[in-house]
Structures are given as C-alpha cells and as structure tokens.
C-alpha cells in the first residue's frame, strides 16, 4: 500500500493504446490529466471535469469511463484506450472514424473523440444496436453543434 505524501509524484504503469507507459503523476491527478499532461494524448478532451459531458471518455479494461472521474493511480496495471488508439493501424481508419467524416458528424470536433470511443464500445458489444439503443448509449456524451442527427447516422453507417 502506497504511503507517499500527497506532494510526491508516483509512477503509474499502465497500458495505453496497446503500449506500456510509465507515467509520472500526482496521486490526486485524474486519468484525464495523466493522459493529457503526462502521456501527451490530448485527443482526450476536458469539457466539464465532472462527468457530465463525456468529452474525456476513454475505455478502461474495455468499459467506457469519464476519465475525469478516474484517478490516474487507479489505472495501474490496466488497459486504457483513447481516440488515438481507435484506428486499427496507422494507415486505416476505424469504420466509425470514416463514417464520422463521410456523414459530417462533427462540426467543432471537440466532442468527437469521446463520441468515437463511446460508439466503438457500443458497436463492439452490440453491432446491431438500433437507433434508440445508440441514442441511449451516447447520452453520456454531449454535442452542442450537430443536434446528434448526423452522429447517429454515422454510427448507423459504421454498422454497415
């Protein structure tokens, strides 16, 4: 059990987008701060810092979470996936990313990473989710630009 003082940083060993990372973080840092500041993964966005907008959505051991509501230290030994890790490789986009582009499912784009991570988690589990199910699953992600119409259509397009 760690007993270092709060001011002392800790080393966090975690796997992010398939790569092992050792990150220097404060014990009070959120996973969001660790990913953005220590790992440089600024695709993870901060919109509210209290779990109500979903912009910081990442996948933690396969479940989507608001990374602002997870302490970095909790990710010790776990698997984190961010928007930067969604594409299967450096060359190809994930069908969701491609569909978001084709369907104009983003305007300002700040919510897009969170939506992509959340939508991917849904399609991984429920490839045939219907519109109601998609809307429910994405209700934890706020978008202020699109009215969601094109986002929903993009997810449906990615379902094939």
């Amino acid at each position, binding site marked *: 059990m760690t007993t270092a003082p709060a001011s002392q940083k800790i080393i966090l060993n975690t796997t992010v987008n398939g790569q092992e990372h050792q990150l220097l973080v404060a014990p009070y840092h959120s996973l969001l701060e660790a990913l953005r500041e220590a790992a440089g993964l600024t695709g993870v966005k901060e919109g509210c810092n209290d779990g109500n*907008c979903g912009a910081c959505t990442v996948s933690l051991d396969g479940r989507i979470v608001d990374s602002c509501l997870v302490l970095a230290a909790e990710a010790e030994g776990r698997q984190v996936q961010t928007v930067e890790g*969604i594409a299967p490789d450096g060359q190809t986009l994930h069908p969701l990313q491609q569909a978001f582009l084709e369907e104009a499912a983003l305007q300002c*784009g700040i919510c897009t990473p969170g939506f992509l991570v959340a939508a991917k988690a849904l399609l991984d589990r429920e490839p045939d989710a219907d519109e109601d199910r998609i809307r429910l699953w994405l209700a934890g992600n706020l978008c202020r630009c699109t009215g969601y119409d094109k986002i929903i259509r993009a997810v449906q397009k990615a379902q094939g």
Partner: protein
Amino acid sequence: MTIIEQPKEYKVIGTRPIRHDGLDKVIGKAQYGADLKLPGMIWGALTRSPYAHARIKRIDTSKAEQAPGVMAVITGADMPVAEAIEIETGEEVTNLAHASDKLMARDKVVYKGHPVAAVAAADQNAAIEAARLIEVEYEVLQPVLTVDEAMASGAPLVHEDYAGKDLGEETRNTNVADHFRHETGDTAAGFAQAAVVVEREFELTMVHQGYIEPHNATALWKSDGKIEIWTSTQGAFGVRSSVAPILRVPETDIRVTPLEIGGGFGGKIPIYLEPVCAVLSKKAGRPVKVVMDRKSVFEATGPTPGGRIRVKMGANDKGDITAAEVDLYYEAGAYPGSPVGAGAMCALACYRVANARVDGYDILVNKPKTAAYRAPGATQAAYAVESVVDEICQALGMDPLDFRLHNATREGDRRADGPVYPRIGNLEQLQALKDSEHYRTPLEREGADGRLRGRGVANGFWFNGGMQSCVTINVNSDGEVGLVEGSVDIGGTRASIAMQAAEVLGLRAEEVHPVVVDTDSVGYTDMTGGSRTTNATGYAAYLAAQNVIAGMKERAAILWESNADDVEFEDGVFSSKHDSELKVTFKELAAKLTETGGPLAASGSIRQRGSGGGFGSHLVDVEIDPETGKVDVIRYTAAQDVGKAIHPSYVEGQIQGGATQGIGWALNEEYFWSDQGVMENSTFLDYRMPTALDLPMIDAIIVEVPNPTHPFGVRGVGETPIVAPVGAVANAIHDAVGVRLTQAPMKPQRVLAAIKEKNGNGA
C-alpha cells in the same frame, strides 16, 4: 462591386467532400487551445468574486505569493487602466473601460464570478490552490437581478457613474443603459382596423451557448515587449484589437494564433482571459496558460439575455396583420450592450406590418455581461411574436403556415425599422415547409400511456453578416494550392471556403489545402460568426482564385510568348484564343512557374455587404405527459433559405444544431438564480442541454434563393435556425394541451402548473 453571373453548373459547389481538417479531428490530433504545450509554460488560475455586487475593500495576496510553485500574482492594480472610449471589434462596439473592468475588477465586483485576482504557478492545481488563498474583503451590496428590479425607482445602481440614453437624451442614476424606438405607420389606426387583437407578455431567463470546450488562453509577453497569444477564439483579429488597447500596447506588437475551437456560437467573440494571461506572463517571465472550469464558463462568460417582452398584434378578418407593438426589455448583464438592437430589428422581420412600433431597452443587472449567441436577440423576440401570431391564427381559424405566407415579407417590403428588403427567400422557405411530408402528414393526437401530442410552427429571421475577410492562395508546383485564411474553422468552413476556390480554379476540393493562420500571416479577417464566413471569406477566396487565374494566364502567355488577353481558362485548361494547338492544364502550368517568372500567390480581400437575410421556419411535433408536464420532441423539420449550400452536409448540420439549441432553450435550459444573484445550476448536470436521447432526427430542408451580392449566391446559414424553435415548441405545447406558456423555458413544472390551472385544479 459587380455582381458576377452565375455559372450554370458547379463541379465542386453543392457536393459533399470530406472536410480538410476532418482527419485530425477523428484521430485526436487536432490541437485545440487547451492542448497547447510550450517550453517553460506554467498555469494560471483566477480568484473570482462570490458575490454578484460588492465593493472591494481590501485584497491580501500574501498567502498566495508564498504558496508552493507560485510565480506570479496579480490583481486589478496590475492591469493597465484602459481608456473609457468605444472601439469597434468586428461590428460590435466595445467600451474599453468596461471590457477591461470585466476581465479583472478594481473597485467593485458587478457579477458573481467576476475575477478579482489571478495566480500563475508551476502546475494547474498549484495555481488553483494558490488562487483560493487570496483573501478579499468585500462590502456586500444589494444586487440588481431582473429587468423589473433594475428599472424600479430607487434601485441599486450597477454602475453609479454610468450615463444612459433614453430616446437619445442622456440619463443619470439609472440602470437603463439605452432605450430606443422604431416606428412606422400609425399603430392606433392599425389596431382600429383589426378584427382580432392579441396582447401578451413573455418572460425569459438567461441561457448559455453551452459550447463543450471551456475558454482558454495562453500568452507569452516576450522580453522585446511583443506579446504572443494562443487561444480558442472565433476571431483572432478581434482578440488582437481588444487586447492591444486594454494592455496599452500597439496592435502590431501582438500576434494572436487561433487554435482549434471547440464551439463558440458567439460566446467566443469577446475576450476573457488573454490580457490576464499576458500580465501574468510579464510578471512570471514565462508563457502562462489558463483553462476555465465549467462553472466559470457559466458564471463569468457571456450568456444571452433573459428579460421581458410585450407583444400586441392585430389582424383583420382577411388575415392581414394591421398593427403590431413590441416592447423588448433585455438584460445587458453587468455592462451595457445586450443584443436588444438586433432583437428589435428581427422581431417583426418576417411580416408585412404597415403600422408598427418596437421599443428596445438595454438594462444593466448584476449578472454576467451578455454576449452574442447565435442570432443574438432574435430568438427571444421571435418566441414572443410567434406565440402571438399563433393565437391570432387560432382566433381567425387560419392555418398557421397560410397566415405566415399571407403576411410574409418579400422583396420591396419595408421593415419596421425602415430599410426595404432586397431579394429574400421568405416565401419560398415557408412554402417548402408547407410542402414537406411532415406538414402534409396529419398528427396522431394521442401517444402511448395517455400522452398528448401537438404540432407547432414558427418563422424566424436573421440578417447574416458580410464584413471583412482576406484570403491568400499559393500555387504549388504539383498543381494543388494552399489557401491561407484568417477565418477560424468552427464547423466546416475550411471546406466551404476551399470549395469556392476550387470551383474557380477547376480543382477538386481536396486539391485546395486550407490553413487558418495567425494575425501576422494573413490580412485582417473578422470573426467567424454572424453567419458571414462562407459568404465573405468564401468571396475573398473566390477573388483570390480569380487573381490566381489572372496570374496563371500571364504565365501561359509567357510560355506561349503571347499576351495574357489571348489566354482563356475553362475546365482547368488554359488555352490560346488564337491558336487551338496551345493548351496547358492548370497542373502543367503550375509545374512551369519557375521558368515563367517564379512563385505565384494571389490574395483576395473584401468588405462584404450583408446577404439580404436568411429566413427559416420550423415545424415540431411534441408529446406531453399531462401528469408530469414533461415535453418530448418527437418529430422536427426545419426549412431555410440559405442562398446557396456550398457543402450541403454542413448546411444541414448548422440547421440541425441551431434547432437543437433552440429546443434546449425552449424546454429546459436556464440560468437558475438565487436571490443573491448566484447561478445555482452551473454544471452540465443541472443546466440540462439536450442529450442524444432527448431528440429525434431533425429534417433540414435547404431552400436556395441566391444572394445577389455573392458570386455563388451564399447567404449564410448558422444563425437563423435558432430563431424559430422556441416559438414553435410553445405553439406545439399549446396545440397539445391547450395552454399558452409565456415563460421560457417551458419546463415540466411550468407546463404541469399551466395544465392544472386550465383544468381548474391549480394548487
């Protein structure tokens, strides 16, 4: 400016290419303001007033200065004193003293969340913790919280020394910053001709733009006196022209780099953090970044006003509107400048009203200074006017779209505020809504479990700006081009501007590479806002592309040892008028620039006129739980004249997004104030913007009545779609349950209370 004849068919315009910046945004590589990291960068945090109205007696920064990691602490005393003069930023007038005071209070705080001090420290948390250590002694004053309170005699004054204006006369000791009037015809005579007169009063509360990205800024005050600013803004040049006089440095010494912006809707036109970061940076000798928290975004950036609106309208039995009077009392916030001026001009803009009077009041209250929010001021007015129009339709037994078509303004009509309309598409878009499948499909009146359904329509107008833009196009040797622009891309304008250049150049959209640059790297460009960017910056791109073609013709002439007048350009090919053998494609010629005189770059700049305005009418079906008052939107269609849709997907997106913000405004969004002027719901949890689960698909009907002042007919699109929704929802609620909601938001508690009152069992 000459009006350019329209090509019959477009190759690029009207298609739906993938936006140029899209890839970076779906892989998480796009750099937004908060993503910036600089060598030596430290973090700032602000100390804000817990009171809406208080005099600052004393500020003690000593504990903060000694806190771990702290490198600079500033208060209002460290900020330069700005001159009390008015400047134009874009087309808004800013009083510098007010703009400066809003950033950092000196003597008095005038809204909850008003900054009183700032700290820079090694990391963000250290800065936040140090900011908590600043001790401020306040003499708490009674806040002024509503337009009625503000206008009451003996009301506390938000600014003791402010001189207001009442129909041009200077007034003292008042919270009414301005009162003005538009008048045409004789309303008394008009009402005398009316068979039906409806008079209602409406009340609204402030609502916020609700962009997901909080405000942020990073500044570096360099040792040579120059200042670098990186920020999420709708207009980098506007930031420069605001920051310079506030910091009292020459504009030339400031370079503003706009980073990607996570939504604005008008709220990221004003500045909040940049001068504070700069002063912190000067003191700390390092770049300083501040990212606002969500609570501060709500409490201390610019929402759109609440207030009170009175509408009286009469119509004769043929369905002609005979007279209308509108009184608009808008909250300015803690400094003058609500959008009541625009509200007054939009209020009756959809209708031919020969006898009209509109009075506008700009009223100071101890709340955050309002800022533009998508068609600023128009939605409030339209909610009131469209509700009254709905009642007149019912009294006359007329179809609500027929009535609106019958009275619709068209080319040559005079608005209540005076000017005569040029070619507009009001009739066409109303007709499109009437022809929609949605309108032609009768509504099933009952939903599941006893829920009741209703249908409402409303119309809306917004001016759509022109303003100033500059674009430079650089021809690359491979025949593709770089397009340098100053218009921040908030929703796909890189694409819509590049497409206009591509159309002229005979290139594919993908062969034009747009880049948004800093204020030193492109000519002056006004903010992305006012639905102006695809119109004006698109026009600048069009002109730049024309100049590129002219330059390329000269190169072809050099190549052929002839004269540029002998060269023509069509479908991407330059050819000689005299020798049919001489042809060279744009790409081939681009490869020969070196041998025909060197690099080719050309600029286009414009101060574009307005667009004649955009009209959009909305149709909504709602379903109401009569036991709880909850309203669900179950079907929605919006029609709008956009002039010309350059990239139809993003035009639809603007309409869908605007409608959604309007739905949120109609149903649940509000600033909920304590009696001391504290916003009690300053989180996304309690501010209640619509989620994906709160909406149906939104059908957007694009109507194209070309704007004669734009080469491709663009009118602009972004603002109009927020004007109609609140009125449309109110009318649908009335249709469903027979109650007229005169307070927005029409939240369940209000709907239920109205239903109960109607049924005679109100509590």
